[in-house]
């Protein structure tokens, strides 16, 4: 089995696993990164979303093979950043997390959006985040949280 190398939360890692493994399984089972959640296993819910080279991707659909040489950031890595701090405060302020199962994925999707579009409109937020399902909040609070983060974190992204 060939070794697959990539950057994970700021560190170089190499794994000797079947390259067809789903990235989510590698992250959760091999690296114990349990903040990556499986909600549907087919890319519909976004609970498993991680950053690949700064873009949100569904780790339940990505084969390990495709990650080789790329940079992966999960909530465990992202929570150490200033951007996370701004986002989490905004989510707290408006109640953007209830049961919390979708929250890590929401945060990652928001980061993906803001890092490429620091001042999105409400429509752009909704369009970008529509691959992340939430059954508790009705979404409104999350949209508000991203808007607040965009304002309060101006210059960070």
């Amino acid at each position: 089995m060939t070794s697959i190398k990539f950057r994970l939360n700021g560190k170089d890692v190499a794994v000797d696993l079947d390259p067809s493994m789903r990235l989510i399984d590698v992250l959760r089972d091999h690296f114990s990164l349990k903040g990556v959640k499986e909600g549907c296993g087919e890319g519909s819910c976004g609970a498993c979303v991680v950053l690949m080279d700064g873009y949100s991707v569904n780790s339940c659909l990505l084969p390990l093979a495709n990650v080789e040489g790329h940079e992966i950031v999960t909530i465990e890595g992202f929570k150490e950043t200033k951007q996370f701090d701004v986002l989490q405060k905004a989510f707290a302020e408006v109640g953007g997390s209830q049961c919390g199962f979708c929250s890590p994925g929401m945060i990652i999707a928001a980061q993906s959006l803001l890092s490429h579009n620091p001042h999105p409109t409400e429509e752009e937020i909704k369009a970008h985040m529509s691959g992340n399902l939430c059954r508790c909040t009705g979404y409104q609070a999350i949209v508000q949280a991203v808007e607040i983060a965009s304002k309060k974190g101006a210059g960070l992204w």
Partner: protein
Amino acid sequence: MVEKKIAYTKKEALDFLANHDAYIIAGGSDMMVIKKNVAGYAPLFDKDVLYVSHIKELANIYEDKDGVHIGATATMHEIEHHKLCPSLLRKAISEVASTNIRHFCTLAGNIGNASPAGDTIVIDALLDAKVKLESVDGVRLVDAKDFVLGVRKIYRHPNELITELIFPKIEYTGELWFKVGSRRADSISKVCFAGYYEVKKNVVTKFACCFGAVAIRPARSKELEAKVVGLSLEELKAKQPQIAGDFAQIIAPIDDQRSNKEYRQTVAMNIFNKFIDDIVGGAK
């Protein structure tokens, strides 16, 4: 034991395909679901697998005399935001799955999988795109419309790799992309429709349209389209019921968990009629 190969160059990929009958995975968004195993275990592949997403030389989007070339490993996200790419294609892509998935899924993968509910294959067929297939034996260009043979069936020889799609430049004055999913985002088409037209001096000079998710493959009839070209807008309006009736014959929707055939048939023709109304009304 099946073999799994990560290719970094086109040559590596073609050499592998020369003697392996393999699944080819670009983004993986479709195959990883189809071949899904229990959580925690590698997907179950019954034959060899070739991963192509790392082939940089296939990620280019560029234009030449043949049209716009879109490399097989360019992601939908890249295509969606690339000014060279046809506007109908970009519109359609903006409604494919979700942003998260578009960050890694590909146009080549969409046609390679040939799902009847695929959105971009409708655009490929409408815009007379060519699928470029390469193998150690050479290069082949196939019309996108003929490349999809049926449900998940494509005209690819086992040693071939889709390396790009080529969209010839088509000038027109109006276009329509209409996707009917089960919700406003992150949904699979129940029906979709793409069309373009050109009207000069009150006469239809170009007309093309293609239906998706209402037949085993994108439904387009150049023969019926030709009957529309040359009509004045008044004639088009007068003949609209008859024309719509003819086009209704080229689709054969089915019942499934997402919708039913009556709905698909009716809505497909509603969109078609809206398209004709746009042509007739728009030129006034």
